[in-house]
């Protein structure tokens, strides 16, 4: 218990989380503090490039481990399965229409790359080792949830209107995923020799970029929350309890398959995270009738801050208690 509290406090006092809270406060009180749109996109590119590359170099160092296939299997299962559970829960606790419930469920099955970045940074400072190939697992977990949601919604507009190509492009060729996986492969191929050329950029520079990026995320999340119109208490409870449930499911699967504690912790963080970039964009094509006021607000303004501040240390402590 003391350890868990210590972990929570360690997380809370990192510059990344403190700057996120600064951004959140500034956004909530309507400060004019802003990260220019172009700069925010550049910061996101640096983040994707850095974590992809670092993951690739670490994967090259460690070689292919059987844990990778297990982690990929757990990740895919969760991404397909979580939306089905989330949809069932939403139908019971809320009056959301079928399409909005399915779209919201997709967000919870898919993942947030920034939560992954913050989570892995936290694991590093806590001294919990995990496989560099988990970056590839992140990419695998982005899409299956969207397919589950389409089935739950009973098909979508994209099929009717011949927009499957656009949907595929938005999902599979989404810029963040292409850069993440591309940088992973570059890291894998160039290995330690490549790292010696890139270490300032993906090391110290990355830390600064992460902090600025999270400052912006705080601003964005607070503005979204203060403008929210369709949030009800059961929906807010869902956005906090669903990540807890998903992370426990993930830990159960990791335990059954004998995954290492580090990889199990990363998977628990990924399972708990909810997408707020790739899936919302895909939903505008796949299920345009679904209400972004519900799904984007829940994933970006409630689940993301919850995971960042409380969830990550909690899932890490739970992993340590169950598997460590």
């Amino acid at each position, binding site marked *: 218990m003391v350890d868990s509290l210590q972990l929570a406090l360690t997380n809370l006092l990192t510059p990344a989380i403190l700057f996120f809270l600064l951004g959140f406060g500034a956004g909530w009180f309507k400060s004019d503090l802003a990260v220019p749109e172009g700069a925010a996109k550049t910061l996101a590119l640096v983040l994707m490039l850095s974590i992809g590359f670092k993951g690739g170099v670490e994967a090259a160092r460690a070689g292919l481990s059987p844990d990778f296939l297990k982690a990929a299997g757990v990740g895919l299962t969760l991404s397909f399965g979580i939306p089905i559970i989330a949809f069932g829960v939403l139908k019971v606790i809320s009056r959301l229409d079928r399409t909005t419930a399915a779209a919201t469920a997709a967000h919870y099955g898919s993942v947030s790359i920034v939560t992954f970045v913050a989570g892995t940074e936290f694991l590093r400072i806590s001294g919990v080792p995990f496989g560099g190939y988990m970056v590839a697992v992140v990419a695998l977990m982005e899409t299956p949830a969207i397919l589950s949601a389409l089935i739950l919604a009973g098909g979508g507009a994209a099929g009717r209107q011949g927009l499957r190509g*656009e949907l595929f492009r938005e999902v599979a060729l989404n810029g963040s995923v292409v850069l993440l996986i591309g940088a992973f492969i570059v890291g894998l191929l160039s290995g330690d020799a490549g790292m010696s050329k890139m270490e300032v950029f993906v090391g110290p520079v990355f830390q600064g970029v992460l902090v600025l990026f999270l400052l912006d995320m705080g601003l964005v999340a607070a503005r979204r929350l203060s403008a929210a119109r369709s949030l009800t208490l059961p929906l807010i409870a869902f956005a906090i309890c669903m990540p807890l449930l998903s992370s426990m499911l993930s830990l159960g699967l990791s335990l059954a398959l004998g995954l290492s504690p580090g990889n199990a912790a990363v998977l628990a963080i990924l399972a708990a995270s909810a997408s707020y970039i790739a899936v919302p964009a895909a939903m505008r094509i796949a299920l345009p009738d679904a209400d972004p006021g519900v799904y984007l607000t829940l994933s*970006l303004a409630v689940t993301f801050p919850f995971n960042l501040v409380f969830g990550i240390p909690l899932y890490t402590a739970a992993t340590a208690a169950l598997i460590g």
Partner: protein
Amino acid sequence: MQLSKRKKLEIIVEAPVLRRVETFLAEAGVRGWTVLPSLAGAGDSGEWRSGDFTPGQEKRLIFALVTTEVADRVLARLADFFADYPGVVAVSDVEVMRGEKF
């Protein structure tokens, strides 16, 4: 100066479906169009400004000048599309220079 009567089409769509709508225009025989970004607005889903975080909901304005016959073909195709997707279509009568280009 010689002016010709044409139709002006103004179509607002969300960015992810822009390419699809451009395909409709090409198929209907529209010879040229211009796409503009949007800065701010308000509608069914509330008020928004450029810089707000709204993945997939960024708006694009397509501007095209066409003959009445082409405008009818575009509208017939868009009516079906906008049964599923959000958007705005406005048609107005205009006079243009160099009418042979449209």
